[in-house]
């Protein structure tokens, strides 16, 4: 469903700051894949997500989503098929609007018309959905009054509302405390399962990456250096991953901390 072929991204080309962020990336994501993406900071995970979502144009290469070439289509057009959640909980919702207005905004993609979308039936629907995240009694409160965990849960609900073909989760629980991170992560798993979503998730928790999803990708210095799935993935261990990384990169690490420069 997602085909990335020969994608290269160079930042600030032709200047002293020139940086090769992605080099000749090839990746095919199949329908129903749940992929965990790991790698140290600066390895190109976020750049890869930005290329898929269309935040910045690629330097070369093509990206196809469901058979359609989206390499040059703008971010807002890709958003019809791609749902993205950022690490920063404030990015997914509009703080100066109420919870129900945010939900209404997310109820369908594309330009809005001169209709009063927030009808009684819709409000009832929203209330029902918001029960899952415990916000059913705060529908008229401004989103700015919610906590980071609540905002991220709301973002998740809003993103899944339109059933995106592909979900991009960019360390979406990293800014939350452990308990809220767990709540949001459980919700994520639940939605992915219930709506049979295809998802790519950046995480810094290697054990989690091994346990969750059917596929694991490791990135380093703008390359995908490891891509395992199925039975092979199930047999991985954190130590095994570190050994693998060492073998590929021929670097010496005392512990897995070398991978997780957080």
């Amino acid at each position: 469903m997602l085909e990335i072929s020969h994608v290269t991204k160079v930042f600030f080309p032709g200047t002293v700051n020139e940086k090769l962020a992605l080099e000749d990336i090839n990746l095919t994501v199949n329908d129903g894949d749940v992929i965990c993406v790991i790698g140290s900071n600066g390895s190109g995970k976020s750049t890869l997500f930005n290329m898929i979502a269309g935040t910045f144009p690629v330097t070369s290469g093509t990206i196809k989503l469901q058979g359609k070439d989206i390499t040059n289509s703008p971010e807002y057009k890709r958003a019809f098929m791609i749902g993205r959640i950022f690490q920063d909980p404030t990015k997914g919702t509009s703080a100066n609007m109420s919870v129900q207005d945010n939900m209404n905004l997310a109820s369908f993609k594309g330009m809005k018309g001169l209709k009063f979308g927030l009808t009684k039936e819709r409000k009832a629907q929203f209330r029902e959905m918001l029960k899952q995240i415990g916000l059913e009694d705060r529908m008229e409160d401004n989103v700015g009054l919610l906590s980071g965990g609540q905002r991220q849960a709301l973002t998740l609900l809003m993103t899944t509302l339109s059933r995106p073909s592909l979900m991009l989760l960019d360390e979406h629980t990293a800014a939350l405390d452990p308990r809220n991170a767990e709540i949001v992560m459980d919700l994520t798993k639940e939605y992915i399962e219930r709506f049979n979503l295809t998802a790519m998730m950046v995480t810094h928790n290697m054990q989690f990456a091994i346990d969750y999803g059917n596929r694991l990708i490791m990135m380093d210095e703008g390359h995908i250096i490891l891509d395992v799935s199925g039975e092979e993935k199930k047999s991985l261990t954190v130590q095994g991953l570190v050994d693998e990384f060492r073998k590929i990169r021929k670097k010496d690490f005392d512990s897995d901390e070398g991978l997780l420069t957080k």
Partner: protein
Amino acid sequence: MIEGIFVEGLIFSIMVLGILISYRILDLADLTCDGSVATGAAVATMCIVGGMGIPASLILAFLSGVVCGIVTATIHNKLHIPGLLAGILTMTMLYSVNLRILGNKANVSLVRVDTLYRLFPEFFSFVPAAFASLIGSLIVVLIVKGLMDLFFRTDLGLALGALGGNEQVIISQGMNPATLKLIGLGLSNGLIALSGGLLAQYQGFADANLGQGMVVQGLAAIMIGEFLFSSNRITLITLRAVLGAIIYKGLMFLGRKYGYLIGITPNDFKLLTGILVIISLAVAQTRAMASAKGAKKKALERTKGFAEGNNA
């Protein structure tokens, strides 16, 4: 006399509603206003002088403002320059355009033709002429405010509000922020030009220099309004903008009438308006600081109470 202040304030309030859209709702400081208010006045005046009829003239004034806003938004969107600079560019260019519209004259008078403010006393002949103008203006403002309140409750209006708060949300929902800015700035400057068209009819002439300093006056009115009450409901936000506009005109009237006592002349009004905006911003900041201090004091008292409780 007092009716005059209200009429001036009501006409001005339509412009303030326009500035409210760009400055507060879209969070985009747009200086096109200084040009588009004069464009509206010029278009309405030339249409009325040309015998087009008042409703058609006002509609054309509104549309001319929409075009001004679209020009600013296009410069901002396509060249990726800040909205502030785009607005200054349009405003500067509009000065020449406005002179062209007025037939290369600095001002055109509406003395020998029917204007809205000559017709209001005929419509509402049961009250004195001055009150008739007030009633007429009030009706126009209520219609504009009502339509604006309705618009910002539609899905499109909500999307404009969301854009001001967080552009990424708009992109994530599959909307082009550039299109929304086009709509928002078009609407904003449409209202500003409509206000200019009414103002020309009220004062009896259109002037190419009409718009000078209008943005700052509008901001002053918005800030005065925000001191009245705080709310996130659109009906109340527009209401306080209208009230702020009237209060601002009232203050200016007092300045004109009693200012000489302390040596203030109308020449000083721009300086005073600027100072008013600065004071408003300063007061808003001290308020925020004061409430933070209050919270700190309370927190300290609480911890002190806990400590004493533990000791006892």
